[in-house]
């Protein structure tokens, strides 16, 4: 496509043409209305002049009859810039006046007429007059009129103005269209080039943003945000597939090894039994990892509305904490629960409950102080209102996570040094973070001095009548 061709096809160009057409029609309308009003005014004035003159002539006629009238008309006719007069007898022959020629039959129409005429002095073609015709006794006719040259001149001026403005508009519109179309085209071409480069595989490229904040900029910024999100998802996907390969291969290998070893060396039913039980155990572990991965993927893809309800997060936190309290105690940790009531949130109770459970589970597993025989530790679980959001804090006094590792700790399958020897899939915190994001909240890791403090925040529900929490199996 040639540049010119492209220019003519550009939306901006077409738009400018439409605006041009509309402004021509608009200005024609305005000028037309003005001309019409002016002509109406001129006509009204002309008629009034005619009326006054006719009145004067009528007085003369009353005083001296047709003869006197003829004299007056004769006299008036020869004054410069005079009105038009014609007096005829009953045979239609002119007796006095400055009108030489009239179309036949005009004088028979008594009243106001708009007619072509010719004067006595000059024979300029195409003159028109507005005139009033009176019938006098004895078959005499009197015409009093005014030339309509003024009216014609106004019309001509208007048409001229319209033509000039049209040319002016056209030039302006063409220039504007060219300017806008070229400017927009240049930017869109640049965006297109970037888009093609991105499609070709360079996901780090972004569309150019001019900084003017106009609609093209906003479009580019929106698309760039979308690209950033796609990039994140792609990176996440790649990392996950790498991690799945690693974290599922390990238990799969173990599972296979156990089965193989049993086949090779076991010779009594009890040994087979043990091997099979271990196999089932391993596969249960694998299923668990799969389920966690699926739950994270679902949560990251966003809520689909099913299973959403308003419920009391404080109550939910309390019941989950109570579920874990005996386990914590067995692990040498006292679970201290401080959950306020009436902390209403809207969300998936099941998923949020699981997220809270993961946080507590995490604290129970990793929150014990280092070293054997360490004193009994305390894990605090707090649910409280924090401005417009609800915060759930789980704090332990374990080794904690160094500040530089905290971001990484939320990624899938990441099990930090020291945690690898302990049970866990490395998915607990990722799932909790994904669930919080899905509900418009966040998950933050802080120092508990010493230990780790995980804070999950969720937006508080607007003050609405309480809905019943979703029931699981009845």
């Amino acid at each position, binding site marked *: 496509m040639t540049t010119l061709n492209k220019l003519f096809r550009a939306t901006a160009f077409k738009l400018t043409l439409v605006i041009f057409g509309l402004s021509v029609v608009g200005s024609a309308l305005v000028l037309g209305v003005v001309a019409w009003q002016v002509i109406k005014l001129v006509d009204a004035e002309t008629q009034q002049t005619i009326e006054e003159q006719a009145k004067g002539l009528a007085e003369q006629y009353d005083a001296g009859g047709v003869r006197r009238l003829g004299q007056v008309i004769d006299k008036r006719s020869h004054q410069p810039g005079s009105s038009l007069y014609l007096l005829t007898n009953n045979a239609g022959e002119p007796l006095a006046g400055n009108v030489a020629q009239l179309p036949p039959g005009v004088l028979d129409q008594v009243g106001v007429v708009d007619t072509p005429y010719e004067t006595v002095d000059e024979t300029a073609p195409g003159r028109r007059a507005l005139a009033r015709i009176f019938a006098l006794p004895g078959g005499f006719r009197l015409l009093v009129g005014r030339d309509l040259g003024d009216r014609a001149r106004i019309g001509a001026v208007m048409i001229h103005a319209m033509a000039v403005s049209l040319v002016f508009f056209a030039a302006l519109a063409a220039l504007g269209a060219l300017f806008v179309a070229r400017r927009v085209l240049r930017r869109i071409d640049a965006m297109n080039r970037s888009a093609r480069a991105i499609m070709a595989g360079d996901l780090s490229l972004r569309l150019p943003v001019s900084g003017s904040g106009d609609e093209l900029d906003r479009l580019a910024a929106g698309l760039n945000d979308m690209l950033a999100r796609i990039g994140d998802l792609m990176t996440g996907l790649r990392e996950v597939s790498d991690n799945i390969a690693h974290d599922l291969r390990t238990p799969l290998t173990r599972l296979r090894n156990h089965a193989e070893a049993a086949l090779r060396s076991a010779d009594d039913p009890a040994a087979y039994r043990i091997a099979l*039980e271990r196999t*089932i155990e391993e*596969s*249960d572990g694998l*299923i*668990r990892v799969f*389920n*966690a991965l*699926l*739950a994270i993927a*679902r949560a990251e893809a966003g809520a*689909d509305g*099913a*299973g959403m309800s308003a419920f009391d997060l404080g109550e939910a936190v309390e*019941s*989950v904490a*109570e*579920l*874990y309290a*005996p*386990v914590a105690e*067995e692990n040498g940790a006292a679970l201290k629960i401080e959950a306020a009531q009436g902390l209403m949130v809207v969300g*998936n109770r*099941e*998923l949020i*409950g*699981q997220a809270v*459970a*993961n946080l507590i*589970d995490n604290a*129970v*597993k990793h929150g014990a102080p280092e070293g054997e025989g360490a004193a009994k530790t305390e894990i605090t679980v707090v649910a409280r209102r924090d401005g417009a959001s609800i915060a759930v804090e789980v704090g332990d006094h374990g080794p904690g996570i160094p500040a530089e590792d905290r971001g990484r700790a939320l990624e899938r399958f990441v099990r930090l040094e020291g945690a690898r020897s302990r049970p*866990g899939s490395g998915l*607990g915190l990722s799932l909790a973070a994904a669930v919080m994001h899905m509900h418009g909240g966040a998950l933050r890791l802080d120092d508990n001095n010493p230990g780790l403090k995980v804070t999950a925040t969720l937006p508080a529900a607007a003050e609405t009548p309480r809905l019943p*929490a*979703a*029931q*699981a*199996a*009845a």
Partner: protein
Amino acid sequence: MSPMRILIIEDDREAAAYLVKAFREAGHSIDHAADGVTGYDLAQEGGYDVAIVDRMLPKMDGLSLIGALRAQGGETPVLILSALGQVDDRVKGLRAGGDDYLAKPYSFSELLARVEALARRRPKGAPEETSYRVGDLTLDRLSRKVARAGEEIALQPREFRLLEYLMQNAGKVVTRTMLLEHVWDYHFDPQTNVIDVHMSRLRAKIDRDFDAPLLHTVRGAGYMLRDDPQ
């Protein structure tokens, strides 16, 4: 457990054959349908204690089948068996009229326990029992009192609900996920042996000071409250 009549609607032949064999070994009588329409017709004829329905079936999907069955007034308890195992899928399944939902892959002991628990449900309209007795252990739901051999046992509210659920299902296997669902109203995987710790605390209260244990651990499956040790 008295034998039950169970209808299995599952299109995968191998999975169906496995289920039929396993349930027969557990002493139940089984009918099998390989598609939704056949399954619906069989279920309509009635007389089943429980129907196990796969979600994705040829000719008529599982949820539509259950919806149609319920619309016709069919009250057969239905357990939905599905590869779709996320929270939302479960909610949809139960809303469609299912009584329980189990995601694939499942363990057979879990499925068996759930099916037996479903079949045992009271018929609609029957009055709810207000007290339970297993051996010399009694639980009164109204006064919320628990006693063994006439001696009152003090339980925490959650322990009371645990025991209540176990007594409702006395003589049946109750799995850990069933306990989590019915006592805590959660369905997620708690990762840790949280339920076991609660159970050992309950056991300490109801069994420790008495000769015959009532609360038994069923290896690889869950727990069972029963009087006569077998």
